[in-house]
């Protein structure tokens, strides 16, 4: 197969070659352990600080509020579990949503087994939470609200600023899983009253295996990974210097190009959405029509099962997904699509296309042209479809 059209940027992105360039010297040349005292290695501490500054700046945060982790999942686990631990005197109730990533949901499951009560907010047909419902869910024992910035499947962007205000008003910590949003849409932790924020390098053209947790000064959570005194004693483990450098470089590139990229991606996204809805019968758009990530399109096609569609797209060199990458192998339909009210068999026929900086109009046309044929072919095989 020659053609390759990568439309799964929500699963992971290409590490930008400029980012790799910045990382390279830190493998075999400047390989010192930043915690070491000699100048060869201590210089890496400064390099690290530079990346912290870059990331802090992009969020309107302070440099020492950025803590490096191994990725979004670790950041999410840390935020939830360590908050439950640190604030147990205050209460044992956490509010989150039904459409969170599994890194949040399974951490919440875990906490439920350990005496924490969790409220999972419903969402409407677009995937938006209801602010009144949120406010009503607050109890005197609520210690944390954790609501994702943007959903990884359907791309819906939650009303973060409003959630932040409610959290602040009730003096409750607010964590947001911004793994899909960071580097793609503007975020300001003060204006949005965000106390903790998770992000993952590989979702914004940085490397895999590195992420960060923003922790507002004053939030008293402790370590999730215990050991050495790295990251101001809050996250043990020899620093992944090349990863940190790569994520810092990617954060900078993402910030600098954000406005332009968002415009380009959302124009193409809308073109894609319009063509699909017009040209493919029994198709629907999942997620909010406008409050959505610039690069995300998510559809359901009735009488279509997702895997077959993906394989046929793959045969045409098109990389796409149905549900999220990390639950593939599971037979259950997406919890997100069920939460927005789709019935089981329709939720099965979903397709997520997430664009990147390199995506062109020609790519989109090629995809839609092929998709039409594929959907038609599968429907002809389906015992559910009669046309």
């Amino acid at each position, binding site marked *: 197969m020659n053609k390759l059209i990568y439309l799964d940027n929500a699963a992971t992105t290409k590490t930008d070659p400029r980012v790799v360039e910045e990382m390279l010297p830190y493998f075999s040349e400047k390989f010192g352990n930043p915690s070491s005292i000699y100048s060869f290695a201590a210089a890496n501490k400064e390099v690290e600080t530079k990346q912290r500054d870059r990331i802090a700046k992009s969020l309107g945060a302070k440099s020492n509020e950025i803590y490096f982790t191994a990725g979004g999942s670790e950041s999410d686990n840390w935020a939830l579990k360590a908050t439950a631990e640190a604030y147990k005197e205050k209460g044992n109730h956490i509010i989150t949503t039904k459409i969170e990533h599994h890194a949040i949901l399974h951490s919440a499951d875990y906490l439920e087994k350990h005496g924490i009560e969790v409220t999972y907010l419903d969402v409407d047909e677009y995937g938006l939470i209801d602010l009144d419902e949120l406010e009503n869910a607050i109890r005197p024992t609520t210690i944390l609200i954790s609501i994702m910035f943007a959903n990884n499947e359907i791309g819906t962007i939650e009303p973060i600023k409003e959630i932040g205000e409610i959290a602040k008003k009730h003096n409750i910590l607010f964590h947001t899983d911004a793994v899909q949003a960071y580097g793609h849409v503007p975020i300001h932790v003060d204006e949005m009253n965000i106390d903790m924020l998770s992000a993952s390098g590989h979702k914004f053209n940085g490397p895999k295996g590195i992420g960060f947790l923003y922790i507002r000064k004053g939030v008293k959570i402790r370590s999730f990974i215990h050991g050495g005194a790295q990251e101001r004693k809050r996250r043990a483990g020899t620093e992944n210097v090349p990863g940190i450098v790569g994520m810092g470089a990617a954060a900078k590139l993402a910030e600098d190009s954000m406005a332009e990229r968002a415009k380009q991606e959302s124009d193409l996204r809308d073109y894609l959405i319009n063509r699909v809805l017009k040209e493919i019968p029994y198709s629907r758009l999942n997620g909010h029509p406008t409050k959505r990530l610039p690069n995300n399109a998510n559809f359901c096609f009735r*009488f279509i*099962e997702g*895997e*077959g569609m993906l*394989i*046929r797209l793959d*045969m045409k060199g098109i990389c796409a997904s149905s549900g999220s990458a990390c639950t593939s*192998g599971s*037979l*259950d*339909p997406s919890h997100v699509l069920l939460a927005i009210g789709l019935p*089981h*068999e329709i939720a*099965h026929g979903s397709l997520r296309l997430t664009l990147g900086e390199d995506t062109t109009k020609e790519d989109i046309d090629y995809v839609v042209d092929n998709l039409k044929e594929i959907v038609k072919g599968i429907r*002809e*095989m*389906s*015992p*559910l*479809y009669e046309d």
Partner: protein
Amino acid sequence: MYSEKVMDHFENPRNVGEIENPSGVGTVGNAKCGDIMRMYLDIDENHVIKDVKFKTFGCGAAVATSSMATELVKGKTVEEALKVTNKAVMDALDGLPPVKVHCSLLAEESIHAALWDYAEKKGLTIEGLKKPKSDIHEDEEEEEEY
């Protein structure tokens, strides 16, 4: 994740379609994954399966096992067809990934269901054929064996 044979049968499924006035039709589904398979059989007076067609709403493995199953039973007698197990279908496809074993069960059971329908219509008893369930799945546990 799929063998070449699976991909071939998925890409070019054999015997897709319907048979008008079939000798027997069987539809089975797996409630867990939501997939559905329907088999149409055309059986002659010598109990030989002259023609077989299928329609499947399901994953790649479901399509490939339906297709392979039709090939395996075509031309066989009803008694022979009964011996085409999901295992035989999988072997003929050079295997399936563990999470996809249940898909091949759909193929076995949809053939059985069609044979049952045929037997009922004809008032026959076919030895070894049990009334099919409409919801087919293995007794699969959440894979927890560490």
